């Protein structure tokens, strides 16, 4: 099977490999997939004032899975959280020219960014719930 140029580029020069501090309140972490299925993606975002300032990933999986997650981190940097929520797997698959057998890689990348956003929002909600007065006091 031949890989598209873009898949090879992301595989050979993955963007934003790494980790952010999981315990940081401004960081959302999404881990999707399973080792038994042959792919696990960890995608993290750091959000400031509703904008994704930084994104990092680590992926265990085939070249297309690595490329899908690398591409998503590139896309979401600088995006507003609600924009990033709208990323569809079809856009990822199209950008990377994934063959049908690799579509699940793009699905996983979409799931990963959604899971990271959800984690971030839950953290925010929890922080807001625990310290309801804090934002007021800050003003």
């Amino acid at each position, binding site marked *: 099977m031949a890989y598209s140029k873009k898949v090879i580029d992301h595989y050979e020069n993955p963007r934003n490999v790494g980790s952010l501090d999981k315990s940081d309140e401004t960081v959302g972490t999404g881990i999707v*997939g399973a*080792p038994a299925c042959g792919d696990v993606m*960890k995608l993290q975002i750091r959000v400031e004032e509703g904008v994704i300032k930084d994104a990092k990933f680590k992926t265990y999986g085939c070249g297309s899975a690595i490329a899908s997650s690398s591409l998503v981190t590139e896309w979401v940097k600088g995006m507003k959280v609600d924009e990033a929520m709208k990323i569809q797997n079809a856009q990822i698959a199209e950008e990377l020219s994934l063959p049908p057998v690799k579509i699940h890689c793009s699905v996983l990348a979409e799931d990963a960014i959604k899971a990271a956003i959800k984690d971030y929002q839950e953290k925010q909600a929890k922080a807001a719930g625990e310290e309801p007065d804090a934002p007021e006091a800050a003003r």
Partner: protein
Amino acid sequence: MSVKTPIYLDYAATCPVDPRVVEAMLPCFTDNFGNAASRTHVFGWRGEEAVDAARIEIAKTINADPKEITFTSGATESNNLAIKGIAEYLADKGRHIVTAVTEHKAVLDTCKYLERRGFEVTYLPVGADGLVDLEELKAALRDDTILVSIMFANNETGVLQPIGAIGKLCKERKILFHTDAVQAFTKVPIDVQALGIDLMSISAHKIYGPKGVGALYVRRRRPRVRLAPQIHGGGHERGNRSGTLNVPGIVGFGEAARIAREEMAAEQARIFELREHLRRRFVAEIPHSIVNGSLEHHLPGTLNISFAYVEGESLLMGLKDIAVSSGSACTSASLEPSYVLRAMGLDDELAHSSLRITVGRPTTREELDYLADRVKEQVERLREMSPLWEMVQDGVDLNSIQWTPH
């Protein structure tokens, strides 16, 4: 020293044809092109002579009589002929067959076909070392068992089954014994008499012969094995397999067998040393490398190894100038990881992380060192990118995590 790329290290899949084999084959395409079944002229006689000479070489390699060799189009056909041919011929005597879960698809799918036709098949499990348990085999044998089919060496792992012991057991119970010896033929000595083999499938292209030709050994004495032909026509090959003989292919097969037999001891010792060099480098230089299958009962040139926390296809992608194969799901059409490794109880994760490397006649130490360097480099790079590796470094037990299978 630099090596010439791409490097081929997938000799269990197929081999280049040895130039000496090509040399032997060439006249059969042009001058000596006769139909070996033509009895009325010299062209036919010469064709038949060439086929007979090849038959002798192959028989000699396994201590058989030339009359016991039936030429086919390859080992898939040989396996089909052996299993369906015996099942059909002995259906009135019994309808039970015993095989193992790690057999090649040519055996497993043939058995599944027979199950749909009213036969019963027992699929023996294997241990973590890839071996079938003789006690389990013994327990599986029944009064209506007509055939045991257990491969000589596994194509993915190189694990050798206890063929002599299985042959003996089958003899005692008067059950026919077929073995798919595609991977083992000319890699380890095979004596069909000493091992008690009744039927054996072999192929030319795995021993530096041409593709499209194979053979089935069919025992003629003690006992005389009869089977129902699966391809009908002119009654070639003693009625076992009709169809005009592939004279160039058969001549090439015979020459390949002769060369491999004469050079086996020296060649396999050299190949074994090379494989061991590679294995030692992997184990010493790459932590969490796990060799799959018994090393004690093993083909000299095959190495199946998993590099934990790195997915096989992504590793292959990083070895783009090297040809090896992987048990990863992503390299198969089915999206399932290797059924052979899973049958050995390997975690799916490790099955996805496996590479199969086979050392062959042209392989050099430099090629293997190049492979080892590249694998080490890529495994390190991919582990840096692997969330699993990160978790393990942080002391997380991967089995404790609630994964989301998709």
